């Protein structure tokens, strides 16, 4: 089904060690244009670590992370700094919300525009017309993104004063502000109530359709995952144990076992 689509992100044999602990063990996966892919697995499976390797927060021990932007040449992301990765069009959110808590909601999104704008120190001091226009562009774009995620009524609030679900959506808006073509979401529905979750799944679908942004998400809410994502990759103890459509995954005995195991542990 995905064969003829353009491959955006290709990860081959990614491995990450922390001292003696192998948190990610030769995991390969790919995200294609237009997809909403999901990465699932029990707690501690290494999903977040996988994200951190892809986005440059950690340098992986081995393996290849290749980015194939449309119309540009392929880049290997291993060892690149996170800001370079973001500049290339790959944005993310964090499992443990990391907003700029004493900046306003709007300013949080404006930070996302940083890598797409240019004014430096001298021009900011002189504040000529170009700078003012750019500044206005930043504000307008950011505000529109807030409208898109439904946070415009909080625009001048401090980020830390937002309700939990709103903070998660603000993280998405901030990531979108960097103009990505691939968005990585780390447990975007964590801590949300069912109503917020259903709003969120609409939002994710809209981002995918309207903005033509491919999405890779980590999520524990199986209902959400099964509903919106295809393909699904499953990790356990650092290894990829399954991949396929929601139907394949649901019936995969390994996956069932992995999740049952977690329930027994819990």
């Amino acid at each position, binding site marked *: 089904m995905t064969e003829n689509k353009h491959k955006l992100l290709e990860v081959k044999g990614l491995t990450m060690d*922390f*001292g003696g602990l192998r948190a990610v063990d030769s995991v390969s996966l790919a995200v294609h244009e237009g997809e909403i892919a999901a990465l699932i697995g029990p707690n501690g499976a290494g999903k*977040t670590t996988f994200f*951190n390797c892809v986005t440059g*927060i*950690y340098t992986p021990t081995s393996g290849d992370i290749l980015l194939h932007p449309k119309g540009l040449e392929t880049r290997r992301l291993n060892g690149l700094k996170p800001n370079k990765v973001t500049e290339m069009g790959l944005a993310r959110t*964090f499992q*443990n919300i990391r907003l700029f808590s004493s900046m306003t909601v709007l300013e949080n999104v404006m930070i996302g525009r940083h890598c797409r704008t240019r004014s430096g120190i001298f021009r900011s001091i002189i504040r000529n017309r170009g700078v003012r226009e750019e500044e206005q562009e930043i504000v307008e774009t950011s505000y529109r993104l807030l409208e898109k995620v439904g946070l415009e009524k909080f625009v001048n609030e401090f980020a830390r004063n937002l309700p939990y679900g709103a903070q998660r959506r603000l993280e998405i808006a901030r990531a979108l502000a960097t103009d990505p073509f691939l968005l990585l979401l780390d447990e975007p529905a964590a801590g949300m109530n069912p109503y917020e979750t259903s709003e969120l799944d609409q939002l994710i679908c809209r981002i995918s359709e309207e903005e033509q942004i491919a999405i890779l998400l980590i999520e524990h809410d199986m209902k959400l995952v099964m509903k919106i994502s295809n393909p699904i990759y499953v990790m356990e103890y650092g290894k990829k144990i399954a991949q396929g459509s929601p139907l394949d995954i649901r019936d995969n005995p390994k996956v069932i076992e992995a999740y049952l195991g977690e329930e027994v542990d819990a």
Partner: protein
Amino acid sequence: MEYFLELFFSGLTRGSIYALIALGYTMVYGIIQLINFAHGEIYMIGAFVALIVAGVCTIYGLSGFAILILAAAIAAVYAAAYGYTLEKIAYRPLRGSPRLSPLISAIGMSIFLQNYVLLAQTPDFLPFPRLIPDFAFMDDVAHIIGSPELVILVTTLITMVLLTLLIKKTRVGKAMRATQQDLNMARLVGINVDRVISLTFVIGSVLAAIGGVLVASYIGQVSFYIGFLAGIKAFTAAVLGGIGSIPGAVLGGLIIGWSESFAAGYISSDYEDVLTFVLLVVILIVRPAGILGKVRKQKV
């Protein structure tokens, strides 16, 4: 060769005192990731209290080695009390604040304590009574290593052994190690984390006070300002060895003691105090985790 040995032992002596102070930094940092900037001041207060006890005793006609022990004991009690209070006032209300807040509070406390002693006592150097006698059996080697140095080395060694036993063998030590590994997890398994933190400050302060008393009787004078430099050097020792690591603190202390002593002996003492900083900068750039420290990646 004799000159070399002399420098070697004076470096060892200084180094072991830096190590004593560095342990306080390392233990506190290991648990709450805070540079206890006021730790050098605790050391200074320890030295000052000892001076006061020893001074009062000698002025009222007592003298001898026993006074040193009395002075050290009282100094340790007071340093512990100050360390405990310091944590309670300046750091505990700031748990969970932005990371700069406790650090600024620590700097404030350091300035406060320095000036408190300055105003309460004197801005001048006070001579510390000579309490360590010259042991007769040391006569033969006195030109290389003096009696005070011997006392310092032996005391430091005993202190370190006791500390290691405390941390490795006792329940309290286990709780401290657990808290250092993961504070929140330790809290979940029922460890009284606040108590452990207080205790860490108390132990660190006692070690610093012992260092203070030893230095005061070795160098022979005390002032409100001695904590500042000693504190920074000890901190450098802790970083050099790998902050959070107890053997690291000892190793770092010794390296700094020796490098100072040899640099002053063979090169020049003009830049003695700067040497530590140069060392610090170089380590932090080359190997921020220190010699024995583990490189810990921040969890995201």
